[in-house]
């Protein structure tokens, strides 16, 4: 399906926002103002955006510890996210959650998740709600290659099939779970882990996760099928993460040059720019303008986050319950 100029510009803006957000965090973290552990999504942008450009606010996604890209793609406020990562009162979760727990239910973003494999059962449950509501909403579980060895993920896939639920399981194969590659950790399939999803009885396929158009098209069909009662699907999207598992990871498990190679040939932003300018769908200067606007937005987000107050200490026991 041919995307309109507006759709193309939006997709590019979303991917660029993620890249700029993450690259900026990579620069900011060593300065010491960002608490906790941060896992960056650079290199995987086409997956979050290719998936979420098929979704509305009323559709839901679940996410992972590497959730910033998913949040941005699903429409979370970028400044609220940045403030959350800095642990400030103005953050999307009031400074309670941080990088690993950003959520905005009004956007259908059911939370980044510190527990690997935590998301898929939640997405499957959201899909029960959607099926019962009958308005054609869908849930998408974005999960890593490592998570697909976790029992709850298998349980969720089986239930999704036996209940014929509107849920899509997206496995982002970014080459590693922490320091371990799927070629070691995945028994059957090894480099083709989505075949296991097929074994549960749903359509499952593998695509280039650095090509926005592949991800978008594959997901579009699955979303349409799910919206009309056709049940679950699964995807494996391949990519490589550009940074370490977390900021500070010495990355001794990777050969020198792996990241440079990925930045050269597996950069979804470069690929997108090349594709749309070659096909004369957009001009380089359109994209340059987006780049400049995004840079400005992230600049403001960081400045505003740093200027924002921390939450009051009394917030510790606020929101443990609705009432108690």
């Amino acid at each position, binding site marked *: 399906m041919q995307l309109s100029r507006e759709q193309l510009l939006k997709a590019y803006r979303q991917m660029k926002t993620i890249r700029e957000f993450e690259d900026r965090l990579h620069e900011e973290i060593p300065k010491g103002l960002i*608490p*906790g*552990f941060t896992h960056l999504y650079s290199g995987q942008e086409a997956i979050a955006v290719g998936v979420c450009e098929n979704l509305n606010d009323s559709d839901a996604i679940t996410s992972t510890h590497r959730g910033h890209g998913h949040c941005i793609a699903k429409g979370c406020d970028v400044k609220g996210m940045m403030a959350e990562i800095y*642990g*400030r009162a103005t953050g999307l*979760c009031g*400074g*309670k*959650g*941080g990088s*690993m*727990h950003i959520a905005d239910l009004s956007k259908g973003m059911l939370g980044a*998740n*510190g*527990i*690997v*494999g935590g998301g898929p059962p939640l997405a499957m449950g959201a899909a029960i709600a959607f099926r019962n509501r009958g308005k054609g909403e869908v849930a998408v579980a974005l999960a890593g290659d*490592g*998570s697909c*060895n*976790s*029992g*709850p993920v298998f349980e969720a896939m089986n239930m999704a099939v036996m209940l014929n639920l509107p849920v899509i399981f997206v496995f982002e194969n970014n080459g*590693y*779970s*922490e*320091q*371990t*590659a*799927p*070629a*070691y*950790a*995945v028994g059957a399939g090894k480099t083709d882990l989505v075949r296991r999803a097929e074994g549960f009885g749903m359509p499952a396929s593998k695509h280039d996760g650095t090509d926005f158009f592949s991800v978008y098209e594959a997901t579009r069909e699955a979303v349409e099928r799910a919206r009309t009662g056709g049940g679950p699907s699964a995807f494996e999207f391949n990519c490589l993460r550009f940074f370490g598992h977390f900021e500070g990871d*010495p990355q*001794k*498990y*990777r*050969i020198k040059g*792996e990241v440079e190679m990925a930045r050269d040939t597996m950069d979804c932003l470069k690929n997108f720019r090349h594709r749309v300018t070659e096909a004369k769908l957009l001009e380089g200067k359109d994209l340059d303008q987006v780049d400049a606007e995004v840079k400005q937005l992230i600049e403001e987000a960081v400045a505003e986050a740093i200027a924002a107050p*921390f*939450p009051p*200490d*009394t*917030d*510790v*026991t606020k929101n*443990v319950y609705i009432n108690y």
Partner: protein
Amino acid sequence: MAIKTYREALTEALMIEMDRDERVIIMGEDVAGGAGGSAGVRDNQNGIFGTYPQFHARYGENRFIDTPISEAAIVGAAAGAALAGLRPVVEIMFADFIGYCLDQIMNQAAKFRYMFGGKSRTPMVLRTAYGAGLSAAAQHSQAIYPMITHIPGIKVAVPSKPADVKGLMLTAMRDDDPVVFFDHKALFGVQGEVPEGDTPIPFGKGMRYREGKDATVVAIGRMVHFSEAVVDKLAKEAGITCDVIDPRTTSPLDEDIILASVQKTGRLIVVDESPPRCSVAGDISAMVAMKGFDFLDAPIQMVTSAHSPVPFAPNLERAYLPSGAKIEEAIRKSVDY
């Protein structure tokens, strides 16, 4: 005695037993790391907390096993391997992830011996890093040792000092019952004197780390360090002296050392990093109220974390945790009563 870090002391215990007993194996996620990675290098981070230096090279693939992210299977496998004659040590990277494998601890390993009429042994150790203080937020910071202490059939160690981690880990690996071993993730770099050689420390034997006459402070894990600092300060600045007692294992619990101290001081303050409800602090307080009521000259004080999940923002996390100021306030309240 040599000065070593908590991490080094733990490694020493693991190596003593891996070298001594072929039946000991270690399993966990990224314990060696690098499996299948493009660099083809194993032992590349020596475990997430650096506790297994060159273990893969030293002990090989059969005894030092990198697993997928499959907590339920890892701990279930440990229990099964233990029934079949091995003595597994398994790592659950963060104690919070015990959520996925609680069944294997609570309904499997803990129950075999009793359910099977005393016919089985389940010699396994589950090692895990717990605790707040690193802004790791709600799913990577919990101090859940009270939940595990609650389960009959499981022994629980929560060491605070390098020497203790070595001695208790040796005992854990030689014990024929399942042990859950909690290391505070903020203690790995802490230094202390560690005795050379094979120096096991028995379970159920607490240690007095400060001696005084005015109050008894019982503290668990990292809170021992917090309490010592406050007690030293009060001795210097206010002439108030306290016993600081570390039970070291919460199951079995050394009731005698606590009761003897409270008999001497008449006052008890318990410092525990867990939230207050059904905590080790509550358990020790109840034990002293029942068995040492006549010794008490003041109400028991508990200093615990808040009854809330662990927050992310650093100021909130500090407000959540016991602090020097809160411990000092509790001691003064008790002494001034």
